[in-house]
């Protein structure tokens, strides 16, 4: 819940701030956004499994972001769109983590439904 509020505050602040990213820098920012989204989903999955560690979360976020930005920069120098590699890697992980979250959510829903049915059965009998 608090994460959603934080996201909304961030978006509002971004709209309000009178700062613009130049078109030369927007590929790096795009990669950085993906790194951030990847970390968010990874962190969700880890906290759901009760194995969230702050050190891993922070280092993962920063190292991934730096690596992705570095790839984008080198790609620009040698004329190959290397930032695509970062986008594909982050995208794949995003979908994997999302799949895990979806399954966990479904399992919880099923458990909840089964429990309420049992309760109803107990009450009716």
């Amino acid at each position, binding site marked *: 819940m608090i*994460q959603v509020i934080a996201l909304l505050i961030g978006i509002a602040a971004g709209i309000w*701030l009178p700062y613009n990213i130049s078109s030369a820098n927007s590929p790096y920012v795009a990669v950085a956004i993906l790194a*951030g989204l990847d970390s968010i989903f990874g962190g969700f999955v880890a906290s759901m499994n009760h194995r969230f560690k*702050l050190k891993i979360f922070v280092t993962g976020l920063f190292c991934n972001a730096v690596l992705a930005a570095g790839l984008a920069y080198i790609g620009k120098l040698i004329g190959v769109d290397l930032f695509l590699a970062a986008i594909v890697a982050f995208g794949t992980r995003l979908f994997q983590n999302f799949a895990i979250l979806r399954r966990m959510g479904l399992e919880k829903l099923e458990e909840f439904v089964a429990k309420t049915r049992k309760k109803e059965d107990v009450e009716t009998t």
Partner: protein
Amino acid sequence: MEKILGLKITVARGAIAIICLIVGLVISLQIKSVVRNTQLDATSAQRVETLVADLIKEKDKNQGLFQQAMEYKSQLEQYQDMAAEQSDSAKLLAEQLRKAEISAGLADVEGPGVVFTMNDSKIKDSGENINAYLIHDQDLLLVINELRNAGAEALSLNGERLLATSYVRCVGSVVMVNGQPYAPPYVITAIGDPTQLETALQMPGGVVKALEFYGIEMALKKSDHLQVPRYSGVIDFKYAVPVSAADAPQGGSQ
């Protein structure tokens, strides 16, 4: 575990929330910038396109108006001829008008003369100021002045008639003559006595010798039959008005 505003805050939630905040901020900034940048690109491209279209339209219009002006001019000539046939005084007037038109540059003229072609120097890597090896307005003006001194009666530069009010001026890499840009090679056509015009240009210590030093490419061609076109623009005097006979200065000084 702490509680803020009734929400349970764990390390995981707090950390993820902070990243959510940053990601949200950057996403909205990025969207805003991308929208703005694409709009900027679109408007600048559109602007160029509309300007080009406008230019072409204006050029067409200009061409049409020029044709029309030429038609009216020939009609006017016909009327003048008709009037001249009717009376002697009209004939005299028409003759005077012809002469005035020639000297004003308002009539196509033909006759013997010289064609003088100038092009930039081919000397490369001279180490000196590169500007010395390009043709400048002064060089053209020197040549034109020399030709006028030698009795040239009609002059044109790259087909643009040189009038009494004409200017030749460097603007960037081209020269403007009568408000039209011209690029090298510069072809000066002069109608006059060909031999006199040639000797005026070729004389020792003259303009050709001076420009040869810098390797400016020059070619002189004498011809018995040359054409110099009329001035195609409009001569419009805003400030100069003829002095009436009563106010005319007597004896040069007042």
